[in-house]
């Protein structure tokens, strides 16, 4: 569904500018005139940046790479919502036809204690990598694997594992959460492996280590706001957080018994 209006539209932007991690940032207003409705949101920013450079003003820094919704590099909080108004859509897949002519668009970085701003709209999401490093994998020494079809997996289980594995690690769940929790991300990673036979040997330790790291990195706890699910471009379900809770409980009990 697109907003009605002409095929070239004018916008007012309010953009967060911040020189570097140590600087104090603030909003700056820009005009974005004659933006084609078929342009993507990032292409709109490209157009604005070209005009800024022509005026010898430094362009707005924002993260992006694949521009097809899969690499997870793009971010932005657009009018208060991470990745903007469309469900199941990354910022790079958001098109200007969804923004009515004359609208004021407020653009901010993903905000969370664990995501310090690097410059303008770019934040450091390295904490998510560090959570993966303590357990986001199945140990499988290269070359030691058995024939792939020796591990049959029921289709519904494989499909659910894939639903979880679809997470693009963009961090929108954190930016949307009032507690800046990364539980949806963590739940997706833990569930993907917990649902598969290959993930069983490391199942108990994985959830304990990853959760501990999550807390250590300064992410908050889940209070069931479900804001994360609402903004997730990969449509990761909050039901995986209940799965995470069960995995955690199971691991604690197992440890206690041992």
């Amino acid at each position, binding site marked *: 569904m697109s907003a009605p209006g002409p095929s070239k539209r004018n916008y007012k932007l309010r953009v967060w500018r911040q020189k570097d991690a140590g600087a104090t940032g603030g909003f700056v207003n820009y005009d974005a005139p004659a933006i084609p409705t078929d342009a993507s949101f990032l292409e709109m920013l*490209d157009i604005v940046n070209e005009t800024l450079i022509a005026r010898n003003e430094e362009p707005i820094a924002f993260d992006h790479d694949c521009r097809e919704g899969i690499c997870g590099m793009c971010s932005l909080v657009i009018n208060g919502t991470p990745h903007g108004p469309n469900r199941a859509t990354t910022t790079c*897949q958001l098109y200007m036809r969804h923004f009515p002519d004359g609208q004021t668009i407020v653009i901010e970085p993903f905000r969370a204690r664990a995501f310090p701003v*690097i410059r303008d709209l770019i934040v450091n999401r390295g904490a998510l990598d560090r959570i993966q490093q303590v357990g986001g994998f199945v140990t499988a020494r290269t070359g030691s694997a*058995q024939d792939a079809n020796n*591990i049959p997996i029921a289709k519904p289980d494989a499909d659910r594992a894939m639903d979880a594995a679809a997470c693009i690690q963009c961090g929108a769940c954190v930016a949307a959460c009032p507690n800046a929790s990364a539980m949806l991300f963590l739940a997706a990673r833990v569930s993907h492996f917990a649902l598969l036979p290959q993930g069983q040997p490391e199942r108990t330790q994985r959830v304990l280590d990853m959760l501990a790291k999550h807390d250590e990195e300064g992410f908050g706890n889940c209070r069931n706001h479900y804001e994360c699910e609402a903004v997730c471009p990969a449509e990761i379900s909050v039901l995986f957080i209940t799965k995470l809770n069960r995995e955690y409980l199971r691991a604690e009990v197992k440890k206690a018994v041992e």
Partner: protein
Amino acid sequence: MTGILDAHIPGGPMEKKWDLHKFESKLINPANKRKFEIIIVGSGLAGASAAATLAELGFRVKCFCYQDSPRRAHSIAAQGGINAAKNYQNDGDSVFRLFYDTVKGGDFRSREANVYRLAQVSAAIIDQCVAQGVPFAREYGGLLANRSFGGAQVSRTFYARGQTGQQLLLGAYGALCKQIEARNVQMFPRTEMLDLVVVDGHAKGIVVRDMVSGKISSHAGDTVVLATGGYGNVFYLSTNAKGCNVTATYRAYRKGAFFANPCYTQIHPTCIPVTGEYQSKLTLMSESLRNDGRVWAPKKQHDKRPPGQIPEDERDYYLERKYPSFGNLAPRDISSRAAKQVCDEGRGVGDTGLGVYLDFADAITRLGVETIRERYGNLFDMYEKITNEDAYKLPMRIFPAVHYTMGGLWVDYNLMSNLPGLHVLGEANFSDHGANRLGASALMQGLADGYFVLPATIGNYLATQAGKKVKPDAPEFKQAEEDVHNRTRRLLGIRGKKTVDHFHRELGILMWEKAGMARNETGLREALKRIPQLREEFWENVNVLGENENLNQSLEKAGRVADFLNFAELLCYDALNRRESCGGHFREEFQTPDGEAVRNDEEFANVSAWECVPNGGPPQLHKEPLEFECCHLATRSYK
């Protein structure tokens, strides 16, 4: 002067070469492995799988990527699948058939021994990925599912919905994460390689820029591995990520590594057409769609009727008509050219006339909308987001776009460049796809190189390097750092009137027109005249604001575009020199009356490897003759 290159292909029968070579390759004993430091640039399928496997073997590894996380490398965007000669479908597949299909698909311009090895290790890749928990698609019985891809008549493609590259990369990234945590790999995200350092004729390190602080520093190692992807963005618009660039491989070329077959570029037939000049990239619609979609254009020229109002007998299903035995699954180069021909005849669709239809109406009638949604739902959603059209109701509009580059740095059978100590993996090397890559073969090659080939061959080089360590304070490093500093200062000092993107776009239009889907001598000569002018304008009139000592995206882009402006010339030289049509390289002078490619095996059954000549002279050509002992050199036919 032309030299002949030796690829060091082992002797023995084709099916035994790899096993014999592995046996004869040098091993490094476990205590010595930790004395060797390996520098890996790039963290896609090839880089991440190599980094993880080499670290697991006991080597010390440093891995660099320009993205903020190694998991974001552009391998992640691969949609359709990965080939393997498993023959799980019992439909007649074998190592030999995958080998033959790949050699034929590459229009007999790849190295047989490399391709055979690729087909041999393909099955182990699937085993490895499943063991890591990659959630490949499965049948109800719990076994792995397959689908077919262009250029093959068997179903050998494994897939994870439309996100196969993402899932395979997550597998390799997971393995890499484990090694980072174990301190066997030191990971440097947001770090870009800006030069290669050569000491006494060996690649011994790199100079990098920290993209956050701007700090320029040196890293020394016992060998350097480039897994930095392809150069498709020389055309500005491509399906590559915005950051994909030629800088690492081009800098290596400047330092003595030969660049092989740069004119082999793959134009993918099924991408979303261009809509306007502000457009920043093109989006691929997976080739897997051609399993169920039918490609057509109106029979009449300039037929502006909506597709639903064009009756069946006024539609030209041109792939089915021209290539009845492969139909809509004709290989990419052939399908792309056929689309271009249709549009050149004035039968293209959409506002620009640069598009054809990919129609699912028959498949939806046959299988039901739910089956189509299950198979391709995410692709249909993506199509709707971009075009605002519902492909369940209207046929998709598609047009070819630059997607992959078969050319790359020249490597021998060990994946080592002519420059000793430099290894090159994945799309960054040239070896396995000849003049055209088949669908679902890029993921296979990236992982083959990283998991299985390099870890077995790297010992052959390292065994000769004991006690030959260099330190990052050697004069060669200082000089390279100084060069990088100077270049950066120069870019920031120009303060001209045009943006970096302006020059990149100009270059892209020129390359697409003169060296894109079809090339001819006149056009290539024009491009060779225009590129140096554009380069000169760039160095006089580009405007790069800000400073080095901060995150500066204009500066990053400027460095990359500066290298594209040099590399473009090399691509055109190669295209001009190769006076034949083969695979993705279509020279208009060499075609049959009905527009099929005409190869010239007498003169061009070889690899063209270009050496950089200092002080700006034309590059010097070296040749590696291609000998075909298993596959009979034949005119490629998909009719």
